[in-house]
């Protein structure tokens, strides 16, 4: 079973590489390889260390679980909103990116913080003391 799954995995990877090089629209592989490597460098070199640093700081706070959870939701929302917030250049038409994303992002951040504060307060109130 394990071996079958592993072999199937290698075959699927082969299909992908074949499709890139010889598929319906063959691509020059080097730009793709550069972007793949770049994605790892940006994540492992910048995003992950920053996350660890923030996480390390948060463990020193009271109510650290609630704070961490709130930051995690905020980070997830910001990562997903990144393209609509920062896409440069003119839009193809007015129905592409039609909303005020800066305002909407601020609203969801504020709501997340309020929910976080609410959850933290609820826990403190239930236990009669702050929870870490």
């Amino acid at each position: 079973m394990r071996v079958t799954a592993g072999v199937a995995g290698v075959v699927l990877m082969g299909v992908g590489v074949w499709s890139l090089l010889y598929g319906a629209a063959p691509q020059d592989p080097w730009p793709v390889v550069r972007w793949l490597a770049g994605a790892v460098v940006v994540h492992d070199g910048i995003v992950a260390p920053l996350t660890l640093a923030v996480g390390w700081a948060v463990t020193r706070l009271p109510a650290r679980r609630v704070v961490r959870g709130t930051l995690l939701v905020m980070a997830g929302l910001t990562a997903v909103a990144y393209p609509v917030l920062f896409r440069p250049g003119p839009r193809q038409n007015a129905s592409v990116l039609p909303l005020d994303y800066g305002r909407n992002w601020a609203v969801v951040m504020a709501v997340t913080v309020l929910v976080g504060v609410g959850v933290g307060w609820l826990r403190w109130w239930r236990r009669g003391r702050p929870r870490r």
Partner: protein
Amino acid sequence: MEAAGRGVMGDMKRPRPPLRGLRGLPCFPVLSGRLHDARTATAIGRWLGAALAVCFVTGLVSHYEQHPPAWLPNSLPSRPAWGYRLRQGLHVASGTAAVPLLLAKLWAVYPRLFVWPPLRSVRHALERLSVAVLVATALLELFTGLLNAAQWYPWPFSFVPVHFALAWVLTGSLLLHVAVKAPEIRAHWRRRSPGTLSLPAEDAVDRRALLGALGAAVGAVTVTTAGQSFPPLSRLDLLAPRHPGHGPQGLPVNRTAALAGVNAQTVQGWRLRVDGPRPYALSLDELRELPQEDVELPIACVEGWSKSARWTGVRIRDLLDRAGAPPGALIRVTSLERHGAYRVMVMPHTYARDPLTLLALRLNGEELSFDHGHPARIIAPNRPGVLQTKWVARLEVL
């Protein structure tokens, strides 16, 4: 400060050094391994695996619907009418949900990047290589997918073939990773699995809090984006690249008439040509005289947005019957636009013969606007938006 905090807060967690040098790399500080453990990785990994599996399958089906390969017979099903809408909505929603999951998963396993020695054996080297491929393709797939939905293309390659090829590499390397890690996954599958029990018990509360927060993050990104295709959530659609209420005649568009080079001048004296055993041509007024049908069908784009609308027009099958087309014939539809990848569309007989498939003249009770394909457009059930040809000039029986 840690010790004082423990006293005041009554915290029971084990004491822990704030920083720990790595063996062999004493100058590189890394956090101690709290929650960077196999149970956390397994718990996040299976959610991420499920999201990526849904994303791969829905994406693959949608891809073959949009670019039918030569070996696929003239028989893609035209029902259910909402099929493509559901599949592509799920594709984008599962990919979006995978963003916080992937970042959390990589955070959980990050210390393993610095294992010492970096390579122990050929097997270990191959395993690390496969993980590198998995991480790189997962990051780039989600990144390109997310940016494509916002029509942002900063990369020097073409999106569709690369996103398609990397999806196979990602799924393959994920399968290989699960196969390699199967014993560890099994040992940490449940809270009471042997591997989980061997981890520090005081981490369990922390881990549950982390997983709960991650679930909240997945929920938050889903409810703030899924409204672009799922009407009950449209009021919470705050961060998606499209909003169902925005667009000409209340319906989003991708290719405008201006972009396609179609305007009042282009359509002057327009006649629909239908070529078959008994060819004919009809003016817009003559089309309006034919029996009109009302259908409720969605426009669903590969970018993930969709919206249902009421379309009025002439059944394609009535037009084909009048030209004497055989029931199993493929149909070629040509648009007025001069260029564009989807100027010519080929329609399998399953769609052409479906009573819901129309040459639409009206949208929600109004004359079609130019941006929605005036004077006439195709609307068919269960098909990608780019194949709902606008500004139709000609139908041909092949």
